[in-house]
């Protein structure tokens, strides 16, 4: 067993009551408080991005104008995409949950550079606020992908949004650096690399991608800014530039970016399934290597977003072939999670329900990825609703379901109270049903040829669109319900014990909520993170 270091002293001096007042939060160097600030900020942006989703889906209730004009619609889907990718899904699990959990799982007192951690939060917030301000000043209608030449010519506050994304990218780079150094330098005695929780391995791989890829988007957005401001002629065909070059630069980051979004999510699933199966993870080594396999391959497949862009057949051949290989390590992880449950003892508490939902939706997302990797199929399916459905299944189904699994799993630790179980399960069910109702019809719309980012559509697509819109409101209901009861639980929930789930990782070794310095006595590790029987 880990040396049991939770004491009454820890509970009396936890991170929530250690100091009071808003200033103590805003200037806190405590990774847990910083993580909570990230969490609340990101959830507010999630709400805003979600409202834009509902605006888009409501407009799409009918084949022609429902309540807004085409320009407003184009802005709505641009803000939905930009907010959800840059401000929500990219930072959500690493900067919010990762910040709170990583140092504790390492048995450390904090991250390696606590001041840098706080700075990262403020850099992120300034970027986010810059982007949000454009809602009131000029607006943007380029789509979150900012393709040239349209993004060079269109009016509006494009440059402000680019600057916002630039800053948020920097925050990610700084946090990634912080985490990598923490993992190398701050592991507790006995916590060898092969005993690291897989959540840490997944965050580590994510951090490497963040450090290597994010500078590329920063430079790309900077070049686009110069193009708009000064007409340097790098992407503008009328000045001798190459519009397709922008796509190469953009996707060189944005493809690895989707793995920044999903690897931390997989990290959470790696924690939840063994705990709620009371069994060791199947093939720890394979699970860790698969994550690095995915991370490395993610850098050399960006061209699969560009099969119809005009790039060469040779490029198409290479990118399609390598993209196929991503399916293999991803499959290894899926099979491993399922095999972990074999001969285990499965509990269906809410974190596990979300993990099982994740398996379902991520499988759909992953299999549809194979369709898109297949060259001729991609030619027909790209830029249609099939792609929209694919990435929502992986990003929303994947990352958000995993986030909700983690949120409920660690809720007792963060808050010191148990969440109310029955309402939480109902929230999971509504969200799961709503999610599939929204996005399953979109696969059909796409195969039948309906392009994406369409304000008007041919009337024969009306029924499918209406089912999808109903689904989107169900998701909204599910999310509101879930968060309403999480807030109620903070007041009405039972007091949480130190380790309600009987897990093995070090964050369960401190009080709930954690002692403000995590551990009064340095914990010492003697066994693996998922060994419950020996």
């Amino acid at each position: 067993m880990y040396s049991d270091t939770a004491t009454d002293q820890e509970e009396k001096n936890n991170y929530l009551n250690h100091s009071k007042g808003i200033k103590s939060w805003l200037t806190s160097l405590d990774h847990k408080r910083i993580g909570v600030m990230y969490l609340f900020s990101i959830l507010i942006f999630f709400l805003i991005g979600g409202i834009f989703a509902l605006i888009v889906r409501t407009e799409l209730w009918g084949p022609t104008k429902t309540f807004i004009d085409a320009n407003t619609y184009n802005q709505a889907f641009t803000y939905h995409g930009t907010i959800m990718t840059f401000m929500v899904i990219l930072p959500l699990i690493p900067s919010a949950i990762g910040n709170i959990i990583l140092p504790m799982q390492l048995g450390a007192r904090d991250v390696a550079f606590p001041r840098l951690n706080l700075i990262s939060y403020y850099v992120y917030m300034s970027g986010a606020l810059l982007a949000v301000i454009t809602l009131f000043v000029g607006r943007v209608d380029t789509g979150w992908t900012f393709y040239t030449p349209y993004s060079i010519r269109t009016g509006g506050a494009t440059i402000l949004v680019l600057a916002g994304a630039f800053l948020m990218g920097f925050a990610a780079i700084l946090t990634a650096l912080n985490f990598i150094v923490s993992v190398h330098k701050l592991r507790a005695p006995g916590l060898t690399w092969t005993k690291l929780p897989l959540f840490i391995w997944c965050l580590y791989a994510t951090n490497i991608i963040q450090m290597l890829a994010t500078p590329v988007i920063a430079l790309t957005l900077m070049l686009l800014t110069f193009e708009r401001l000064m007409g340097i002629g790098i992407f503008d065909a009328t000045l001798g530039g190459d519009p397709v070059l922008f796509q190469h630069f953009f996707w060189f980051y944005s493809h690895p970016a989707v793995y920044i979004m999903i690897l931390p999510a997989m990290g959470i699933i790696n924690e939840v399934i063994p705990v709620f199966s009371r069994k060791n993870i199947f093939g720890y080594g394979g699970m860790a290597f698969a994550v690095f396999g995915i991370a490395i391959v993610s850098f050399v497949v960006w061209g699969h977003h560009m099969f119809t862009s005009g790039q060469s057949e040779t490029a198409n051949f290479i990118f399609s072939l390598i993209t196929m290989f991503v399916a293999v390590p991803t499959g290894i992880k899926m099979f491993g999670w399922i095999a972990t449950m074999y001969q285990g003892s499965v509990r269906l508490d809410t974190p596990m329900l979300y993990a099982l939902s994740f398996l379902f939706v991520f499988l759909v997302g992953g299999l549809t990825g194979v369709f898109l990797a297949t060259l001729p199929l991609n030619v027909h399916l790209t830029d249609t609703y099939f792609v929209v459905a694919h990435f929502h299944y992986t990003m929303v189904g994947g990352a958000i379901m995993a986030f909700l699994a983690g949120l409920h799993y660690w809720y007792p630790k963060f808050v010191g109270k148990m969440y109310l179980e029955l309402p939480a399960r109902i929230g999971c069910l509504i969200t799961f049903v709503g999610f599939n109702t929204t996005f399953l019809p979109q696969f059909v719309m796409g195969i039948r040829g309906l392009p994406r980012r369409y304000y008007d559509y041919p009337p024969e697509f009306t029924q499918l669109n209406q089912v999808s819109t109903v689904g989107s409101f169900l998701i909204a209901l599910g999310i509101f319900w879930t968060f309403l009861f999480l807030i109620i639980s903070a007041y009405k929930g039972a007091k949480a014990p130190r380790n309600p789930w009987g897990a093995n990782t070090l964050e369960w070794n401190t009080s709930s909520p954690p002692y403000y310095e995590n551990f009064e006595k340095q914990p010492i590790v003697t066994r693996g993170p998922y060994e419950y029987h020996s």
Partner: protein
Amino acid sequence: MNTNVFSYLLPGTGSHVASWWNDLFSFVMWISIFFFVLLIGITLAFVYKYHHKKVDKVIDSHGNTSLEILWTIVPTILVLFIFAWGWLVYKKMHRPPAGSFEVRVIGQQWRWKFAYNNGKNTVGELIVPVGKRIKLLMTSEDVIHSFFIPDMRVKQDVVPGLYTALWFEATKPGEHVIYCSEYCGGLHSNMLATLKVLPHDEWLEWWRKQEKTERDLSIPPEKRGEGLATKYACTSCHSVDGSALIGPSFRNLYGRTEKLTSGRSALVDEDYIRNKILKPNSDGVVGYPQVMPSFQGQISEEEIMDIIAFIKSLKD
């Protein structure tokens, strides 16, 4: 074409290539369904069989190397097979055969223009004979668009500054929708065209018919103007019923006073309309995006007069 068990999902099948596409699609679909049912089925079975209320003792394990090797190798082989089949279909689908009949395509916000080898031009409809291999040579006048014919399963981005190509061969007469499938602002979702596949004789008749270069003097000017407003796609941005699309509506436009971005106000008379057609964005109307293309060199003075007559006729 071929009846396919997934035909509920598919659009029309207008060519042999589309039919090969359907076969590959069906294969990937069956593999996906197989793995989906297998994995979800096993998961649900495990959740049921190993539910904690039924389980006395957990049989712990670290993994099983042979199983891991198996489920690494089998998926690798499967995806390589799918890749290879895909590459073979792609080669046939992507490389225009020699001797194809060429049509030039120009994408422009927000309409498709087609130029044929004998000097004919069409806007919004691509007219081809059945059973002939058609090669489209495409470019854009402004931003990136994408030319997509779902029934033929072909799509290619249309990029300013370079030519891209696609080819297809329609196996039966009929009409097929063409979409723009790369977001291009404003009226992206209205940038549709129609592929009209005609039986050979009918097509030949169309091909040989001279474009009417004479104005039809037997109809009033506003009627000629109405036809021109469609031909030059004015009505894709300017409505005739008063609703605001991308540009001001033509209804009640004549005689109105418009506020311009320079600050001055202008009376919409014949001169104003002519100026806007030839130099649209020299001083734009407040509240509207400055995106109107110029028709300088494309439209004659008589055609401008007919369009003005049409606009004047649209008053309440």
